């Protein structure tokens, strides 16, 4: 990990084939993130936030340039290596929660640990801890469709955090939530960021999220136009 950074992005360009040509969604991004950051990609719709998050999450690969996550170059990873990287080090939180509907809250949170082949006793403890972090221990047996939006997103956060990943990527996590739930979620994530020292990277244009950020990276037309540390809230 270069100079203590767990994410390093250099000269990143991402083009999507559109019709006969290409659309450049990311146009020369240079960024790095250290351990324990609480950062956000901010910018108007279409500025490339999700695209950048997907590349950091090894769900997509760069067209040019390099993105190194936990010392591994995302574009050069095999499917399996990329899956291992996500499995061990990355947690995802989506706008639409994306809990698996046929499984209970407990089982949804348990799933990443099954992939890690954690034994049953440790697994159960870890799941209950994660549900405790997000305050969802009373909904262990509920199915996603029995949960409110806020509860669903807390379940999704528990699922992302249960394996204590180094990096958590959250794409518009509050977009479907009301203000009270948004603050609750953000406070939870802020606390987890401190307690677990996980790096959080948001993609958002929600002011409520932006308030909580310690670093705000502004994107426009696939370029970083501003990158600033924000005064610590108290």
């Amino acid at each position, binding site marked *: 990990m270069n100079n203590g950074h767990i994410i390093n992005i250099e000269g990143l360009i991402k083009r999507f084939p559109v019709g006969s040509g290409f659309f450049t969604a990311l146009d020369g991004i240079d960024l790095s993130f250290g351990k324990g950051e609480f950062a956000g990609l901010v910018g108007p719709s279409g500025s490339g936030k999700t695209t950048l998050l997907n590349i950091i999450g090894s769900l997509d690969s760069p067209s040019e340039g390099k993105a190194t996550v936990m010392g591994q170059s995302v574009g050069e990873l095999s499917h399996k290596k990329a*899956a291992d990287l*996500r499995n061990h080090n990355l947690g995802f939180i989506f706008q639409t929660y994306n809990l698996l509907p046929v499984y209970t809250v407990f089982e949804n949170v348990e799933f990443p640990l099954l992939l890690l082949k954690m034994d049953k006793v440790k697994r159960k403890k870890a799941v209950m801890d994660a549900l405790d972090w997000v305050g969802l221990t009373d909904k262990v047996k509920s199915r996603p469709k029995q949960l409110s939006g806020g509860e669903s997103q807390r379940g999704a956060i528990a699922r992302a955090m249960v394996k204590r990943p180094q990096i958590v990527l959250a794409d518009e996590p509050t977009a479907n939530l009301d203000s009270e739930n948004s603050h609750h979620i953000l406070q939870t994530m802020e606390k987890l960021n401190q307690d677990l020292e996980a790096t959080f990277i948001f993609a958002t244009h929600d002011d409520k999220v932006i308030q909580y950020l310690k670093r705000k990276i502004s994107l426009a037309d696939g370029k970083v136009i501003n990158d600033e540390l924000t005064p610590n809230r108290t």
Partner: protein
Amino acid sequence: MIRFLFKGLLRDRHRSLFPVITISIGVLFTVLLQCWITGILGDMINTNARFSTGHVKITTRAYAENADQLPTDLAMIGAEEMLANLKQDYPDMDWVPRIQFGGLLDAPDENGETRTQGTAFGMAVDLLSEETQEINRLNLAEALIQGSMPNESGEILLSDDLAQKLEVAPGQTVTLLSSTMYGSMAMYNFRVAGTVKFGVSALDRGAMILDISDAQLALDMMDAASEILGFNQIGLYNNEEATVLATSYNEAVVDDKDEFAPAMLRLRDQNDLASMLDYIQSFVTMFISIFILAMGIVLWNSGLIGGIRRYGEIGIRLAIGEYKGHIYRSMIGESVLIGLFGSCIGTALGLGVAWLLQTYGFSVGDYMKNATIMMPNTFRAQITSTAYYIGFIPGLFATILGTSLSGVGIYRRQTAQLFKELEA
């Protein structure tokens, strides 16, 4: 992990219950159709064999050419010796002489004047000898409606319909008016022992069953038989066996152009059965193929849709770090389970219903009143070994194939693209 996936499979009825039902239904119909058609065909062949054609039949060439006229004058003389030779040369077959003839039956009143009259189709078989299998073969005991089986010479069975038409009851006498083998007038009295109904319209219209020795007496056919039928032991027509037999017999016996020389015909060679059987067979093959194909496409499609419906779930599982290969294999594994389960249920149900149809049958007698071909009035299914796999295999493989193809999307698409579909 496997338990986890299994739980998901059971809870998601779109993934388990509904596909199983679809597969079961498709498989059920395939199995049933196969048993049904096999049964009808087999019954037709069997009925023809038992009542009319045998598995092979020996007649004079001239008789064979005019068989539909029941020409007793073209019968074979020296039947005893022929039978003895046949039994010696082909001991695996049961050889039986028969005479078929047409005539008028006349029921007299107390003064001996004609009271009622009707045309009869005479079928003379070995009814009275100790070792005869003809009674079983023609199912006479079960076909008996009134009276009893003939147990002495001079007694006959009449089709129940004809007996009603003639207004005669068992115990009464009827007079046969026909022509002898040599063309003169034949007149002979018989006592009606009983009436029968076969469930074969062509026979029920006017059959008269009598012992062959009575027919020989009545028609002046001493030691003659118009036909000698051969039946194999298992009672099922086997065309290859019949072909071998007929070829060897015809080569050995028939060495000149004598139209009174005996010749052996296979079941297929008679009653236009060849063209009918071929026609039915190709029709059936086509029909079943189309049916299986259609079922295959439906199941394939539902496998495909089932897979595509899950791209969202797949996207999440990929994001969490599951291997593509693992997801793909788990989907295939599920489809194998679902396909197996559905195909088993469908095959079991199909065999069950086929069994019912095999045991109880389905009556079509009302539609067959004017049928001239030998065809049973009750259609029965027949379960053959084919029925065990004809639905099962396409049911299983179409499902797996559909899932395999839809699952290829996991590999072909960029992971991020699966997410786009998920967010939508």
